[in-house]
C-alpha cells in the first residue's frame, strides 16, 4: 500500500519526511503526535497520514493543487519552534475534508501543517495572514 515516491514527470510527490512529529498534537487531538506518511499512486496528488498511536488518519495535499493564490505568512515563533530558518527547509500541506462529499471537498487554508523536512517536526499553525483565507476552501470548481 505504501508506494514509493514515483519519479515519472507527471507524478511528483512533495518532499516529505517518512514520519512527522506534531509535538503539540493536531488542534483537536492533543494525543496524536506521531504520524506516518503514505504515498499511494492511486491517490496522487493526495497523501495520507496515519497516527502511529491512535486510530486517526487524514488526507493532505499541496497548495499547488488548490484553486487559490496561497501565500501563508508564518510567525517567527512558529518557525523558530520547528527549527526553521528558510523556506527550503519546510513543506506546507493542507488538510482535506471529504466529510461533506466529493463535490463539496474542501481544504483548510487557515490551519495548514508546517513540516520541517529534515527533522519531521511539525505543527498545525494559523498563518499571520489568516484573514485572507478560509478553513473550508473548495477544492473542485463548479462543474
Amino acid at each position, binding site marked *: 500500500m505504501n508506494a514509493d515516491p514515483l519519479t515519472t514527470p507527471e507524478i511528483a510527490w512533495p518532499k516529505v519526511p517518512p514520519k512527522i512529529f506534531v509535538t503539540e498534537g493536531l488542534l483537536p487531538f492533543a494525543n496524536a503526535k506521531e504520524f506516518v506518511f503514505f504515498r499511494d499512486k492511486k491517490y496522487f496528488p493526495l497523501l495520507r497520514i496515519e497516527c502511529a498511536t491512535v486510530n486517526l488518519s487524514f488526507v493532505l495535499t499541496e497548495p499547488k493543487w488548490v484553486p487559490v493564490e496561497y501565500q501563508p505568512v508564518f510567525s517567527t515563533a512558529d518557525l523558530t519552534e520547528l527549527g526553521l530558518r528558510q523556506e527550503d527547509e519546510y513543506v506546507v500541506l493542507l488538510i482535506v475534508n471529504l466529510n461533506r*462529499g466529493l463535490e463539496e471537498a474542501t481544504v483548510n487554508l*487557515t490551519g495548514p501543517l508546517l513540516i520541517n523536512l529534515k527533522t519531521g517536526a511539525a505543527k498545525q499553525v494559523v498563518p499571520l495572514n489568516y484573514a485572507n483565507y478560509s478553513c473550508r476552501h473548495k477544492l473542485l470548481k463548479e462543474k
Partner: protein
Amino acid sequence: MLVLKRKAGEAIIIGDNIEVRVLRLDGDHVRLGIIAPQMVTVLRSELLEEVRNETQASAVMPAELSQVQLLSQRLKGLTAKKK
C-alpha cells in the same frame, strides 16, 4: 482566571511587550487595541475553534478511501498550478 476592571483608554500589559488597550465601549461591544511583536499570533478565539472543528471533521475513515481516490482523479484532471 485573572479578572481586571478597566475603563476606556486604559490598558493591561502581558509579559514584557504585549499591550491590550480598551479603546471604546459600545453597548455590549468592546473595541480592543493590541500591540504585540510580529512573532506573536493574535487570533479571535472563534477562529481557533473553527480550525479545531474543521480538523476534527476532516479525519478520514477507511471506508472513505474510495472517495479519496475519486477526488484524486478529479484533481489530476485539473492542471496543477506551477509552484
